[in-house]
């Protein structure tokens, strides 16, 4: 490690935007012990980030919300395969507007009550949407709900639709539900109904700060970091 105080090592971490608050807190903790490392984030949807990294964005660490995006980068040798690690997982919940007009909606009448709109992430592009589709298909309810679906381009949009009461019901990650105080969870979706929502991380091959990058990624799996992740609704 460099012993000079002004020669701080800066690493750029590209991460799925659903992790924004959790990662920010983890980085603060990390910097407390690794005083010579400074973490800078860029948040966005995993697909977008993967594309940017592919185009040479000067990123050191990538934390994705979907395995498939990581897989593509791995195939092209853009990440260091040996550093790839699963950091955490997420679960799905069904939500409705808090103190909204449809308080009759509950765990038992999810698929039978007369509602107009169900908001989920676009099952072609948004990880939460992908898993929601898997689960609903397995439950045999995908077809019943199909005419009611409104797709969001990201989970935030799904939240907005539910928060404003325009969609009576929505399916998002636990962490997303927890980040909004205008929605409430009415049901948890059994994680076995869909492939597990893994958040893999890896160091980018082109990094100029392999040491610091490795150190940060390693830190993600430590109990301290995992504890923070749990407080934001992730599971390990």
């Amino acid at each position, binding site marked *: 490690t460099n012993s000079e105080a002004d020669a701080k090592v800066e690493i750029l971490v590209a991460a799925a935007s659903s992790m924004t608050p959790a990662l920010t807190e983890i980085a603060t903790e990390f910097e407390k012990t690794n005083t010579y490392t400074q973490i800078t984030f860029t948040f966005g*949807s995993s*697909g*977008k980030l993967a594309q940017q990294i592919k185009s040479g964005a000067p990123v050191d660490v990538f934390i994705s919300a979907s395995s498939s995006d990581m897989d*593509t980068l791995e195939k092209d040798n853009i990440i260091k395969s040996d550093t790839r690690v699963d950091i955490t997982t997420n679960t799905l919940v069904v939500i409705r507007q808090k103190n909204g*007009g449809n308080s009759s909606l509950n765990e038992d009448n999810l698929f039978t009550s007369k509602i107009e*709109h169900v*908001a989920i992430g*676009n099952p*072609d*592009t948004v990880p939460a949407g992908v898993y929601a589709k898997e689960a609903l298909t397995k439950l045999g309810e995908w077809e019943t709900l199909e005419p009611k*679906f*409104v*797709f*969001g*381009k990201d989970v935030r*949009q799904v939240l*907005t*639709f539910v928060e*404003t*009461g*325009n*969609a009576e019901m929505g399916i998002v990650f636990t962490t997303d539900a927890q980040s909004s105080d205008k929605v409430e969870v009415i049901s948890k979706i059994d994680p076995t109904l869909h492939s597990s929502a893994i958040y893999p991380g890896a160091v980018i091959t082109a990094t100029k700060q392999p040491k610091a990058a490795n150190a940060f990624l390693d830190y993600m799996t430590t109990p301290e970091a995992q504890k923070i992740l749990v407080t934001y609704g992730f599971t390990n």
Partner: protein
Amino acid sequence: MGEISYGPLILSIKVAAIATILVFLIGTFLARIFARRNFFGKTIIEAFFLLPLVLPPTVVGFGLLILFGKDQLLGRWLYDYAHLQIVFSWIGAVIASTVVAFPLMYQSASAAFKQVDGKLEAAAHTLGASRWRVFRTITMPLAWPGLLAGFVLTFARALGEFGATLMIAGYIPGRTDTIPMAIYFAVEAGDMQKATFWVIIIVALGFSTILWLSWWSNQNLRRFTVKRKGGAPRNV
């Protein structure tokens, strides 16, 4: 690239056409009202008209959602009295495109009217022409280059509108999926073939409309486009 439905094409044409006509009428009307008048606060109102351009479309869409949401004032009123459901419907897409394209038309028309020689309008009045007739037969033809530019910009913008539309109309395949949405989600899903397909379609649509427009403008409105070069003989 899977099966492709032509729904987005029809919908995009419908939404862009209606929005363009609305914007053309409202924008031209307001620009005409404001162009030759000076009152306190005029510039402020004009700056206000530019807001939809300055704010990120998503934010504009968010504002519209708040305004037209089913539990909100305007939204409820429209629903109760006109049975119009704005959110998650193609009407929402029209509203989004209209709002977002409006500044383009207003600015173009306003500038065009300022460049028209008031003396000719006065001459038309001495010939007994009413205000409306003067506007239709003198002002509009003479301002035509600017109005056409505004029209073209408006149509292009309305055709390409995406951010605000997605927010208020959501993405409901078969109901509110315009071409830009199809492109966005195809890119996002990494389906480059599909994305390219839709890009070609939208470009073809935009091109053919604009080419037809300038052809029509040249043909029917040859009298509108004053040849200016001093003195070249009539038929040489």
